[in-house]
């Protein structure tokens, strides 16, 4: 079976802590993601996301705090806008915009994180390998 590679950018305050929780709670989930921690989802420059795809990622996941909960108040809102715009241009670079996903996962939502990773991995498996690498 095709095993996709995912790059997962998590903000330190919510999603990363949520992933920690999933870990300490010994929840099992698919191992396809490589996690990178950043201070805030807004710290992730769109150039980083494009680089991830350039280096061959089959999918990129961005995890941040829920609206209203961002440690830096509006950081995740900017991230939302960036991702929405990136999704508009990705097809012109031969990339299905569904390969870029954004999810709000709080520090308490370990279970949600597990679900997101599992579904994203399944979706990417179904999409198959990227044709333009």
């Amino acid at each position, binding site marked *: 079976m095709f095993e996709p590679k995912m790059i997962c950018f998590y903000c330190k305050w919510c999603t990363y802590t949520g992933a920690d929780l999933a870990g300490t709670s010994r929840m099992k989930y698919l191992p396809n993601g490589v996690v990178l921690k950043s201070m805030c989802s807004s710290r992730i*420059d*769109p*150039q980083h*996301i*494009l*680089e991830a*795809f*350039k280096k061959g990622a089959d999918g990129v996941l961005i995890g941040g705090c829920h*609206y209203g909960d961002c440690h830096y108040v*509006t950081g995740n*809102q*900017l991230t*939302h*806008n*960036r991702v*929405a*715009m*990136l999704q*508009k*241009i990705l*097809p*012109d*670079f*031969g*990339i*299905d*915009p*569904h390969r870029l996903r954004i999810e709000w996962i709080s520090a308490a939502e370990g279970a949600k994180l597990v679900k997101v990773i599992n579904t994203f991995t399944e979706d990417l498996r179904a*999409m198959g390998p*990227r*044709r*333009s690498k």
Partner: protein
Amino acid sequence: MAKLKLGMYWAATCGGCDVSVLDTHERLLKIVEAADIYFWPIAMDFKYKDVEAMEDGFLDVCLFNGAIRNSENEHLAKLLRKKSKVMVAYGACAAFGGIPALANFTTREKILEKAYKTTVSTDNPQGVYPQPSTKMPEGEITIPEFYNHVYKLSDIVPVEYTIPGCPPPADLLMTAVEAIVTGKLPPAGSTIAGEKTLCDECPLEKSEKPVINDIKRPFQVIPDGKKCLLEQGLICMGPATRSGCGAACIKVNMPCRGCFGPAKDIKDQGAKMLSALASIVKFDDEQKADQIINSMVDATGTLYRFGGANAILSPRRTEGEKP
């Protein structure tokens, strides 16, 4: 001091970069005083064979304009690289692909089909396409074949300096010539233009935390002549674009399209602009934000108007996937 040996060449180009040399007007005579030109197809009679006959490194500087679109462009780029001590990517096409690199978002096949078959005035019932080789009654005649992709110069050969702009303004060319003549060139790898972003040299007023509630197209608004165009809802590439043009377009009330390429330390001009835009589109309401973003037309063609060969990702719809 010995006179400088200069070469200029055009690859896949519009000729505007060469015209920009003429646009130094009376200062052109200064250039001719400081430098002997050994190769300049638009104006002088030196030939390809003359270039081949040069010793390696014979030319002090080669100003190379135009993108790389076919094997011949590539061949000349390699040849001139060998013959030149310093290679300069002159103009947006050589530096980033320029307008011709918009072709990277379509395919060679589609281009041929449009040009020779489906354009409304074309009368081609037999479906004749230009061919690399055609047998005429008198014998075979040939024309070159193209690449499916447009490259910037540095994709093909190492480049020491970049002089951006479409075309580079005459003042910038004079600055570069001055630097070359006095030997005061910046470190290799530098871009000869401003260091900051265009916004930095733009005379329009900017506010602290601008927010826009809609994106407008240039024909829909009459800018007030005072406020930043981006804040008036017009997509202006200023925040991601290198300074050095003197805000030429903005001075006539038109938003920047980014012909100076990415500002210092920016790799992907389009991604950077996208970032800047994302931070001013009304963001406290997800739905409204999506609405504004979705109203933006031709995002890729706008963000990468001049950078189709300089993006982090290779813009190739051909091999790509559609959602």
